[in-house]
């Protein structure tokens, strides 16, 4: 199912569906490996809750919540939980 990359759970992965960033940041993200169709995994969140560290194409990249929320991913499991609930569950 579709979800914002920022809403992934710790250790959860997904395939990048679309990137809504524009201009320089869009390019930067594409340049460092956030490509549509690529697999991304949320490794951990920083001690203060933000940013999150993502595993993408062999490297670990940290993004703030706002930036990560503009990337949509497809997660494999179709458990039907509401992303909002998940987020509350995590924090």
């Amino acid at each position, binding site marked *: 199912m579709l979800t914002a990359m920022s809403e992934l759970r710790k250790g959860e992965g997904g395939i990048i569906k679309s990137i809504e*960033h524009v201009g320089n*940041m869009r390019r930067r993200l594409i340049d460092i490996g956030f490509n549509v169709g690529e697999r991304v995994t949320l*490794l951990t969140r*920083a*001690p*203060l809750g933000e940013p999150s560290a993502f595993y993408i194409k062999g490297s670990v990249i*940290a993004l703030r919540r706002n930036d990560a929320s503009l990337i949509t991913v497809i997660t494999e499991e179709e458990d039907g939980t509401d992303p909002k609930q998940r987020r509350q569950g995590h924090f």
Partner: protein
Amino acid sequence: MGLTLNSVGKGIFDDKITDGDGMTVLMSGNPNVGKSTLFNCLTGMHQHTGNWTGKTVSLASGKVRYGDKRVTLIDLPGCFSLNSRSEEERVARDCIYFENYDRAVVVCDASCLSRHLYLALQICQVSPNTVICVNLADEAKKHGITVDTDALSKRLKVPCVLTSAKKKSDCKKLISLLEKQSDALEIDYGERIENYISDIYSLVIGTGILRSDARVFALRLLDSDEEFCEKLKSKLSLSDSVYNEAKSFSVSFLDTHYSGSIDLVSDEISDAIIKSANAISSECVTEKKASKKALSFSDRLLIGKFTAFPIMLALLFFILWLTVKGANYPSDMLRAFFNELETLARTGFNNIGVPSLISTPICEGIIRVTGWVVSVMLPPMAIFFPMFTLLEDIGYLPRIAFNLDRCFSCSHACGKQALTMCMGLGCNAAGVVGCRIIDSPRERDIALLTNSFMPCNGRFPMLIAIIGIFFASSGGATAAVLVGVLAMSVAVTLAVSYMLSKTVLRGKPSSFTLELPPFRMPNIGQVITRSIFDRTLFVLGRAVSVAAPTGLLIWLIANINIGNVSILAHATEILDPIGRFIGLDGVILLGFLLGLPANEIVVPVIIMAYTSGSALTDYASLSELKNVFISSGWTAMTAVNFIIFTVFHWPCSTTLLTVKKETSSIKKTAFAFLLPTAVGVILCLISRVIFSLLQ
């Protein structure tokens, strides 16, 4: 950029490529693939290495002999792509496009080749005679990844080599490949863009342009970067009419097929390159194990929810404790040595009949002040710099930025500011240059203006000395107070960043990415020699070259009288009301003013001023120094305010010049001077009020 001869010295103002005869080779690649390590291995130079993205922000060049050939190597700052518009990647991009060079080496990481091939493919299209160097082969092997460079070479039709930068033999292999020649690569961008490229080619073909150059030109036009295209135009010597025709053709192409969206067309171009990179890497790379997608044990500790901050504080405390403790003994030895030297010089001068008019200023001015600077500054630096370099090489600095990012986000600043602050701990000038890693101009200015809030290595020993004299009896206590001082620096930096974001540098935090590199075992021997020879001795040299003449000057003004009172007394008298107002005194203020070229001399100037004309001229140990301060009217408040003012006052002249260079704005430079001064004055006043309430 690390702290090197070039980054803290006059080389900081020099970005030009030095032209040599023989072959010129550019070394490019993603950040953090070991370009600098490879560069050092090839040239034997001490280009500073570090394990974090954005470490090298300007060019370094070195020479290497190969047979009878001379090769000039140029180490470019890391970049992820040639299409980026960020300031950080501009230097590398412009070099690839516009510099005259014979070969371009693209350094790739064997463990994630497809990501690195993205840049390699771009460079191969722009410059013929590219050599691909697949580095970090040893690291990849550990993860069960092997790269078939023969297949890669065949596929790309460019020479490729597998290296582990720490191995000398691999470097030789790379050099020998520079002999080979190859053509520029062509990537298939799909029918629509390929047709467009052919159309542009037929427009410019009359100028005798190379096919590969025409392709590059056509693709670049779609990017609509006016300034860049103008540069490309003059490089390819295109006439105005041809250039304008091609430009309007590309604009109409963009409008017709992509409704004018640069994002859309650049997506299509990147997609083609990514697909091709992925295909090539899947042909040439074999992975035995599935790639690891979990945090390493050390990362779980260093950025873990409950362990990150305790470990950070403990590490900081440990480093400072080791610095304080370890510096004590050599400091005492050096002080004894310089006392001895002063006595020897005095007797020597007496014996050969030099009049005391000359010998006294030399002994009491030059030797004493220089002696202070060396004995108090050298040992802590020689311990702190290697420790700091070690943390840098292991890859801890980006983790600090990761842990602290939330605070910067609340201050509307960039998380990478934490990295520039770490650099500032070494040297503020280097910290200011390091601010280039921040993309957003607003956030870069914030980082740049607040960088001097981090006490640099020139100020650390001062803090250690004063804390040791007044507040702490043991090394551990001194280190604990120092941790507190640093925490105050960070807190003030965050607060001021927030205030700047709300006033003169208004704006929302911008987007950024922070790479957390894998941990790497540093080469300890190299770390120590490099940090001692390049950083410590250099910074010390700068301090001494300022200390010696200032020592003479201060002795002269302390001993030349105008109307029965020395010039020094006159000067301190003028400054005294201002000094007293902020809980210091005229002498301290004068010390900081004279310390503008190098903060290291502030304390010796103050001591010299206090002791001139009094009986207290001999201070063999720090405890005797305490008497000097106390008999000059220091109280606990003076000491506290001295510490505050040491951390928050005008940056040294090198830092100011660097700010001027980085911002090319007199206004911002003036602001960089006034901001910390104002903060220092306000904090000193607050502390004065608190002390008066306590009494």
